Structure formats: structure tokens, C-alpha cells
């Protein structure tokens, strides 16, 4: 920082109070970091404590300096800024930490040849022991789990979107805030709060009654996930349909267009970008569910392309079983490497879905070009 004499000070008018120089925050930050390090050195240095102590010192230093020079109003402003930025950093900390941990642990697994194209079929503890003892390649991959996740989520989407969208259309266009509409809204809110394991148990019990005992297939898992997904889809679609201006509906009615055609051709196309991104976010919400899949689809080690028959693996259950029941109990490292790799793939999937949601919203958004 070059310290120049502030020109404001030289031509002080009756309208200005004292001002801190532009470099003040940086100077205080540097001082806070040094003092913080010194304090921490006395009690035993660690990075986390250093950050916390420095942040507190920074806030105290900057605010009191500002109070002395700039007056109490400016000082309060700086205190509020410190609190807001501080909260943001605290909120960001877990996210950065999670991403960092998963990247560090997951990349070796992801880069393992065949990780995305092989299943765990035939991979036994003996191979893992060999890989650890003689440094050979870690065999096995997540292809079966990836395939299972995609199939289960796709089927869940196919079930949830029509149900959710039609419910939202009823609530906004036909419900008139009547008793039924209010009851539906209430129960959708209740559904939002259902613990995912309960949704899984519901689906398992439902198929137990309808199909027979011990029915564990991808379809059962998809039903469980739709129980979680439907309220999200209803809520987001409802909000999107609500913000379609009533004037557009009236314009269509005034042209002699029937109500259902107005909804189909005017209301939904106007809201489609929001609906589509809401659906994508709902998918991202359920794709990482573990408990309901565990009780409904079991866990498989081989590829299963039939969503209606046989146990099926998915990424979350794959992670769960690899960590809890390593393929080779005496050498769990290869298993945990695979689990971290799967976790990384899952996070990437969710991130890609979020990006897709934004892209979809932009593509479908009404154009305003001239």
C-alpha cells in the first residue's frame, strides 16, 4: 500500500467529517493478522484460532479507529459491514471445506482407470489386499451405481413432474383458495417435512402390500424419491404460475380462448423457465438421498439395467456400503478411495444439475429483443 496524504483532509469543508484513508481496512487487517499470530503463539498456534482471533481484532480495531476519526454513525456502518462479511465467511467455510476434502480424497479414485466404466462385480477383498500389498491398481468402479442413480432419479422425475405440475395448476388456476386447495397446500407443506427414511419405509411398505414381501427394485426407490420430490415440484411450480400476470390470462380469455387452452398455451409457456429450473433443483435435492434407497432398492455390486426388477446400486448407497463394509475388511483403503471418488462424482452431478437449471431458465425465458 502506498500511503499518500489524503487530499480530502487538506480541503475539509463544513460538510465533511474526518475520513479514514482508503488503505485503512488493509492496514488494520495486516495489524490484526500479526497481533493475532503473536497471541496464538503464546497459547499454541493453529490456523483456525488464528483466523477467529484476527477477525475479532480486525473488527474491534477498525470500528474503534473509525469511531475516533469518523464519528459514531460511520463506525456503526463499519461494524455492520464487518458482521455481514463475517457471517458470509462463516457460511462459506463448510462449503469450501467440503469441496476441498472431497477433491483431495476423490480425485485419486476418479482418475483410477475404469472407475467410471466398471462395476464392482467380481471385485473381492483379495484384489484390494493385493493392490495395497503390492501396489497394483485398485480394481472396480461406480458404473453400476451411476447407472442406478440415473435410472432411479429419472423414473422419480417421470412420476413427480406430472403429479406436481398438475397439482400446482389446480392450486393456482382452479382452486380459488377453496377448502380443498387450502387442504392440499397444507399437506404439501407437511410432505416437505417428511424425513426421507419415512418416505423410504412408506414405499417399501406400499410395495410389500401391493407386490409382495421383500420387493426391492429401482422402481420402489423411485416411488420413495417421488414422495420427497413432489412437494418441491408443487411448491416451485405454484410460485412460478402465480407470477404469470393475470393480464395475460385475461387477454387470452378476451380472444375467446378456453381456460384449459389458456393455461396450456399461455400460462405454462410463460412460466416454463421457472418450472423447468425448479424441477432440476428438485432432482438435485433427491439425487443424494441415501436412506430411502437403502431400504427400497438394496445395494447391488453388478450392473442392473432393469429398474423394475432386482436390487440396484446408487451412488449414495455405494458410498455408504464402501465406507461401512469395505470390500476387504483388513485393507479398507481401496474401498474408501472408491467411496470418495463416488462422492466427488455425486457432487459434480449436483453441480452440473444446478448449472443446467440456470441454462434451462435462460433458454426458456421470454425473449425481449427488438
Amino acid at each position: 500500500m502506498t500511503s499518500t496524504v489524503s487530499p480530502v483532509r487538506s480541503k475539509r469543508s463544513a460538510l465533511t467529517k474526518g475520513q479514514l484513508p482508503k488503505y485503512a481496512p488493509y492496514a488494520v487487517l495486516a495489524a490484526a493478522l500479526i497481533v493475532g499470530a503473536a497471541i496464538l503463539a503464546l497459547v499454541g498456534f493453529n490456523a483456525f484460532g488464528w483466523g477467529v482471533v484476527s477477525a475479532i481484532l480486525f473488527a474491534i480495531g477498525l470500528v474503534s479507529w473509525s469511531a475516533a476519526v469518523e464519528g459514531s454513525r460511520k463506525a456503526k456502518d463499519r461494524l455492520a459491514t464487518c458482521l455481514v462479511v463475517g457471517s458470509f465467511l462463516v457460511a462459506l467455510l463448510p462449503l469450501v471445506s467440503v469441496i476441498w476434502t472431497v477433491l483431495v480424497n476423490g480425485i485419486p479414485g476418479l482418475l483410477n482407470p475404469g472407475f467410471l466404466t466398471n462395476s464392482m462385480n467380481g471385485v473381492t477383498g483379495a484384489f484390494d489386499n493385493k493392490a495395497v500389498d503390492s501396489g497394483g491398481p485398485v480394481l472396480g468402479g461406480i458404473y453400476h451405481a451411476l447407472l442406478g442413480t440415473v435410472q432411479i432419479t429419472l423414473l422419480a422425475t417421470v412420476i413427480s413432474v406430472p403429479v406436481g405440475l398438475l397439482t400446482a395448476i389446480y392450486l393456482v388456476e382452479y382452486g380459488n383458495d377453496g377448502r380443498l386447495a387450502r387442504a392440499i397446500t397444507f399437506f404439501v407443506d407437511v410432505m416437505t417435512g417428511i424425513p426421507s427414511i419415512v418416505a423410504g419405509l412408506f414405499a417399501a411398505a406400499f410395495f410389500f402390500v401391493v407386490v409382495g414381501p421383500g420387493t426391492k427394485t429401482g422402481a420402489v426407490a423411485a416411488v420413495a424419491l417421488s414422495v420427497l420430490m413432489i412437494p418441491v415440484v408443487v411448491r416451485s411450480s405454484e410460485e412460478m404460475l402465480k407470477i404469470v400476470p393475470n393480464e395475460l390470462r385475461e387477454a387470452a380469455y378476451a380472444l375467446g380462448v378456453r381456460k384449459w387452452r389458456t393455461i396450456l398455451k399461455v400460462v405454462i409457456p410463460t412460466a416454463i423457465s421457472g418450472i423447468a429450473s425448479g424441477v432440476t433443483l428438485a432432482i438435485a435435492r433427491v439425487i443424494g438421498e441415501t436412506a430411502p434407497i437403502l431400504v427400497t432398492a438394496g445395494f447391488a455390486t453388478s450392473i442392473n439395467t432393469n429398474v423394475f426388477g432386482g436390487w440396484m446400486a446408487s451412488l449414495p448407497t455405494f458410498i455408504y456400503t464402501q465406507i461401512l463394509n469395505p470390500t476387504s475388511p483388513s485393507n479398507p483403503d481401496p474401498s474408501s478411495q472408491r467411496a470418495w471418488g463416488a462422492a466427488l462424482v455425486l457432487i459434480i452431478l449436483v453441480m452440473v444439475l444446478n448449472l443446467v437449471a440456470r441454462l434451462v431458465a435462460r433458454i426458456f425465458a421470454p425473449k425481449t429483443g427488438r
Partner: protein
Amino acid sequence: MSKRIDVKDLNVYYGDFLAVEDVSINIEAKSVTAFIGPSGCGKSTFLRTLNRMHEVIPGARVEGEVLLDGDNLYGPGVDPVTVRSQIGMVFQRPNPFPTMSIRDNVLAGVKLNNKKISKGEADVLVERSLKGANLWNEVKDRLEKPGSGLSGGQQQRLCIARAIAVEPQVILMDEPCSALDPISTLAIEDLINELKDQYTVVIVTHNMQQAARVSDKTAFFNIAGTGKPGKLIEYGDTHTIFSNPVQKATEDYVSGRFG
């Protein structure tokens, strides 16, 4: 291609609230009729009952008769959709469909109803409607661009083109110029003058000069006070209403001594 409207003893309710009381009025075919009056006096509400658009609002209902060339709009078994395809409407704020191009906006009445139309016929209809709304020259090179990219006045004329593309008998306009600048207003007023050669036009306006400029007949609505129903005070030739009204309230209103 235009029909007259006769209203007999019409009461309009929102739930239990009587919004407009006992209106009887005869609107001539191929003429422009203006509704004037203070805000909240029920002229827009009354206008919307002329093509059953008030039914969109929950709880709204009417008593009485509205006859379109003798056929009661509120007779048993009358489909409001049929009514609206005969009696078009232009709203206060321009509301082109944001997802559609200019061309599709004009064709909305046809396409949204899934009527089959060949491309040639569609082209003819688009050109005729846009020419009818005095908008053709401004947009003919960008028919595929979105309608929301036009200026406010152009959007309003696009909405008029959209309304006349379904070839209605009557066009209702609810303060069509209140969101527009004077030049766009002039364009719309010129258009109204041309429209009356083919259509029956009913216009609600807050601008008395506008009513005097464009209309053949004028109806003055008023309310006795907040919570009271709106009533038709006086109806007659525009010239008479503005220069020699019968009622004191009308004279006060048109001369600006009221409200």
C-alpha cells in the same frame, strides 16, 4: 360485421356488494360510445359485463339482460367463450403475450384455439390486422421478433390488431390510452375513428377531451359515495353531454367542477 348492444336493467354484484345499479343503455352499431366518470364509479366493471369478462373475478355476477342484436348474453346455455369471440377487448395496460412473436401475437386468437389456417391465409390475416391497427409499416420487417420489444404505444396497437384478427362484432376498450404518451394516444384515437366503419366500439376513458374527440355518444357514470353502487347518470350525443347536459352532476363533471 358489427352488432348493436342493448342493456336492460343491469345490476352487477361482487358477492353481496352491488357495484353497478340498474343500467339501461342502447349502444348503436358502427359507432363509438364513450363511458366517462370518476374512478370507482363502475364504468370498467360495467364494460366487462358486456363480454362476460367480469366472470374471471371470483364472486362477480349480474342480474338483467345484455342483448347483442337481440340475443341475450346471459341467457341459459350461452357459452361465455362464444360471447368473447364476438366481443373483443383491449385492456388498460398493453399485454402482448411475451412468449410469442409479433406475428404469433396477431394470430393468437386463431392459433390458441387450434383452428387450422394455411400459411398464406395467416399472412393475409396478419397483414390485414396490422394494417387495421396502423402498425403494419412499423413492424413489417420484424414480424418474427418478440412483441414485448415494441414501445408501449406499438404494443397497444398490437393488442388492437390481435383483437380485430378474430373478427369480432364489437370491440371494448378499457382506458386504452392511459399508459401511453400523447403521440401514441393520437395514433390510437385515429385508429378508433377508422375502426368504427367496421366495428361497434365502446371505450372507457378518464380523459374527457378524448371522449369528446373520438365518440359519437357518451355515457356519464357516477357514484353517490364510497360503498354506494355506481349508476348511469346521463347518456346522449357526445355534443349534448359536453355542451348542454341535462343533469347537474354531468355538467359539474364535464366542466371540471366536480371531484
